[in-house]
């Protein structure tokens, strides 16, 4: 049972964590240096032994602490989630300790977070891109990255040479393309939100 006593006991003697909110589940801020030890404690002593998700949030270039890693843990005993927010100290080259030694499931989650946000996880056993190809120069889920993408060469140089293809920004044509979700099927299918402009004719002011 996650009640006030539980939270009080958890916070006692641990000045590196603080309660952020308890709206949907207990959400704690945690300092990166103490993350591994705290995760071990949650896993072994507090029965939060299931890592459900590990991802990150980009708060934008102006934010004081731009990148924040978010962990969701679940306890089958408490039947409850616990959320950990870990703010990355450096905005330019964000880095926090890897928890894959505590939760092996974090291995690929951390690789995905690295792939999409460029957050490094120190002491990770195999920190390389998992979705995009190894030489891809950008981090696509960062705020400054456009949805359509940025032109780069195709991953395989020999294929690019024969076909002349490269990685182009996707045509948005008034997009993004969203489904309205109601009405007849023929009207509900994904279409451009704003059909008044295309790549050829500029967006009206």
């Amino acid at each position, binding site marked *: 049972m996650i009640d006030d006593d539980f939270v009080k006991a958890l916070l006692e003697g641990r000045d590196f964590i603080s309660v952020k909110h308890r709206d949907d589940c207990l959400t704690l801020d945690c300092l990166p240096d103490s993350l591994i030890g705290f995760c071990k404690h949650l896993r072994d002593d507090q029965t939060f032994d299931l890592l459900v998700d590990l991802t990150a949030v980009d708060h934008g270039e102006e934010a004081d602490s731009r990148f924040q890693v978010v962990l969701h843990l679940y306890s089958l005993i408490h039947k409850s989630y616990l959320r950990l927010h870990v703010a990355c100290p450096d905005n330019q080259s964000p880095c926090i300790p890897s928890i894959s030694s505590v939760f092996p499931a974090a291995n690929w989650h951390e690789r995905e977070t690295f792939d999409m946000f460029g957050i490094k996880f120190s002491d990770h056993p195999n920190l390389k891109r998992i979705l995009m190809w190894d030489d891809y120069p950008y981090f696509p889920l960062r705020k400054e990255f456009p949805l359509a*993408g940025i032109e780069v060469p*195709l991953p*395989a140089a020999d294929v690019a*040479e024969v076909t002349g293809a490269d990685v182009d920004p*996707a045509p948005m044509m008034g*997009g993004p393309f969203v489904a309205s979700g109601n009405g007849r099927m023929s009207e509900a299918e*994904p279409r451009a939100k704003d059909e008044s402009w295309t790549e050829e004719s500029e967006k009206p002011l």
Partner: protein
Amino acid sequence: MISNEVGYNSKVEGEVIVTRADSVINWIRKHSVWPMPMGLACCAIELMASAASRYDISRFGMEVMRFSPRQSDCMIVAGTVTYKMAEVVRRIYDQMGDPKWVVAMGACASTGGMYRSYAVMQGVDNVVPVDVYVSGCPPRPEALLDAMMKLQGKIGNESSVKNLSKKPESTGVS
């Protein structure tokens, strides 16, 4: 007596059929299309349905799905082609022996579909020459069957004899 027969009659015409080499070669080719199922997303499920009993692609002589590119001559690109996968699609295409054809099945393979994003190639025709495009997301098996019949029609009109001495257009990648 007036005969209503329209087919070949060996009693009348003897044991010899006169025709053009193109007709024979194309007739053989179009009724033994061996598809290479390049299943990349949900279109592959519809592709499987078209091979199963309800739709039964074997009625048109193309049920021999081969998972080895060396044995197949029609690549059915069924699904979303990401930039990371595009390289693989091209390499598999190059491993197929001539003559070979490509069917882009569904919106994603044809144009990128609803994936207007940094990760998805906007149409597989950027890396391989496509013969037939199929609309739909995913297309129903009937649509795929129609596309394959269109492909048969296309094969039937090829100048096969002339193409025998022609060099392939692209050198291909290893």
